[in-house]
């Protein structure tokens, strides 16, 4: 990659249960296989139950970094839920950050209860776009539902990340990792999800 920032910091975020851990590990292993030194930090446990979750990936050509990204230093934010992308930008964002987000929202419990309001989606989208270098919004949940399984929403987003060309990952490398990791009965579905996400990012206008 040209202009490699040392280290490269990727954030994978979303809502507990959306599968951010699986894709962050897939990405970690793809990059490790290429010789990068990758460190992933995760929080799970109580946070799984509907809370905000995120994994941080520190990707280096030189040394092992700690899992925590310093303020303002995210290079790419991959989000399974749009407001969660903005939540991570709050601390880690900068004018050069690239953001890829699922466009399907998940209402926080305070919104369900009526104690709070989910932000207007168009405003959310334009804010993310204004505060980043490029932003992609991918209808990943809808694509996954079309494929018959909302569970693969995360894999659609992984495909979108590959399609965005923001990271040194080819479609073939991602496919190989899916084949190596996902249980045999689910491989075809996941490869299809990966491809649909890849195409969606290529087709989506980088705002």
């Amino acid at each position: 990659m040209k202009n490699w920032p040392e280290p490269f910091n990727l954030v994978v975020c979303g809502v507990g249960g959306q599968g951010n851990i699986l894709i962050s590990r897939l990405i970690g292993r793809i990059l490790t296989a290429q010789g990068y030194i990758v460190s992933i930090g995760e929080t799970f446990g109580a946070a799984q139950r509907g809370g905000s979750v995120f994994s941080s990936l520190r990707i280096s050509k030189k040394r092992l970094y700690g899992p925590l990204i310093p303020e303002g230093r995210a290079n790419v934010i991959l989000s399974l839920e749009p407001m969660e992308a903005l939540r991570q930008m709050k601390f880690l964002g900068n004018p050069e950050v690239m953001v890829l987000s699922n466009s399907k929202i998940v209402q926080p419990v305070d919104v369900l209860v009526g104690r709070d309001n989910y932000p207007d989606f168009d405003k959310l989208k334009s804010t993310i776009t204004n505060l980043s270098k490029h932003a992609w919004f991918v209808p990943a949940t809808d694509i996954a539902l079309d494929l018959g399984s909302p569970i693969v929403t995360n894999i659609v987003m992984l495909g979108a990340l590959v399609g965005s060309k923001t990271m040194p990952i080819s479609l073939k490398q991602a496919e190989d990792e899916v084949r190596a990791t996902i249980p045999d009965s689910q491989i075809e579905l996941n490869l299809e999800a990966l491809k649909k996400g890849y195409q969606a990012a290529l087709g989506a206008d980088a705002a």
Partner: protein
Amino acid sequence: MNNRKSRGTTSFLLGNEAIARAALEAGIHFASGYPGTPSSEIIRTIVPYAEKSNVHVEWSVNEKVACEGAAAAAFAGLRSLAAMKNAGLSVALDFLTHLSMTGLGANNGSMVVVVCDDPDGHSSGDETDSRWLARFSYAPLLEPSSIPEAKQLMRWAFELSAEYDCHVMLRSYTRLSHASTLIELEEIRQKGVQSHTDSSVSISPYLAIDKHADVIKRLARIRERFEDSSFNTYEGPDRPELIIICGGSGYLCVRDAVESLGIDQSVGILKLATLWPFPKQLVADHLARTDRFLIAEEVDPYIEIHVKETMVDDGRNGKQIFGKESGHIPAYGEITPDRVISALADIRGMEYTGRSAEYGKKIAAQADPLIVGRGLAWCPGCPHRATFWALEKAIKQDRRNAYLTGDIGCYTLDVFPGGKSLQNLLHAMGSGAGLASGLGQLGRFGYEQPVIAVCGDSTFFHASIPALINAVTNRSNLIQVVLDNQATAMTGFQPHPGTGTNALGQQAPKIEIEDLCRAMGCRVTVADPFDVRSSIRTIRHLLKEDTGVRVLIMRRTCELVRMREENFKPVTVSVDDEKCKGDECRICTSEFRCPGLVWDDLEGYASIREDICSGCGVCADICPFNAIAKEEVA
């Protein structure tokens, strides 16, 4: 490590997986633990090796029993591991303090206790710092700064344990246990041994004074060993302007901070991995290098206090120590690169911002107003949501202001934004029953409120039983609700004595909660939380009974476990917008609070999120206008 296809001699491992792998490579025979975030993956990782590598693996009923089992294996000449979270170490501590006094019986056994702390309390009710407990219980303590080092330190911990004939403690923490990186794998090789114990010898901590004197001597020998350990490292100039002394999570944060500020030519980094006994001479040697020191660690000022102690012992005055006690590093919470950056910038009088002030202003003006908190909530289809719904209704109808004592598990989410906040007192594992036992005996002081304790099935076995026996024998008056979802759900669905399976998934004798409670002298009722109306009636009835210890078992399998096994929705639900009263009611979303049921602001009525709904059908029963229809899936 599980479910991954092999890739030769390296593997991408979680910190906990690397710790478990090291134990396997060290040739352990026995592994035990009680689940607790962030420690649970250690025992889970060993499970697949039980058969092929001949390891006894168990989920113990609690951490004290886990340590006792592991120690028994060591007394019999074997290698053992016990793993737990910080709270669990407190449960085990009574045994471990005595174990330090006896040592491991000089039978070639060895034992490592791994404790995983949770700085910031990501998944805990506290962020207690276990390092003190190693010192308190006279146990040698190692603390890794990275996953590769965790693996090496684990291997060394077993060697130390065998050499000094005592258990060794290794402290991990969330940012190590739940981080992952590429790890070199070595062969798993177990020494074939014939386990045995010597019946002619009595091993005990008596006479305590003599044993204590021996322990002090042992620790002095270990301290000498630690002074020379290659795991304690110094990097930087010979005569730096400032030395940063760190351990654990602090080290990689310090590396980030020094790199960000570009000051690696003028500051040194002393990383300590052997924290008890504290390597005083090594630290004293570095105290001679310069006059200013920053101590970067989490949670408590453990290293800091020991550095100050070393300073006094070494007769060194005029040194400046920056850290938690000077306010340069926050006195609580995790260590982060930014916390170290800000301390260093302050000490050195440097200006530093992670990003431009202009961008920061834009974030504050544009992003902040759009970000809504995302509080924790029970999963869609969770039986606990239905149980707490029934409890709330029954308590309201009872009108006597019942008081609830809570416990630790998924039902703890009751006090988070998605819950009902019915639990009035909430502390440690099993404390709900103990607190209720106390409250239920305050009648002579005019205490008239009904007392209800809630706990989960795994928690019941872990620590509620003695408290319930206490309540029965002391004639306390309470209702103990056991939310039996047939799993230790919060930590990853581990089995427990009531599930009828063991850690390996094999059939095990099933201990029925109701049989046990009856034998203890409790009156027992069993109900299904998904039968909401009947559950409310049952709770009201139990409240009216008013005296004695009444146990109500709310039994329904955890929805995530069911989905895993069955993978289908039993019912489909739909909202009839003709019957839905819209904004004037909104009970389903504002009070029942299932993520599968959302409010459609545009249309003004409830709707079902098909991608989230798990098909439990309970919402159809709580709608007062029968506007939610459920249909069984054929």
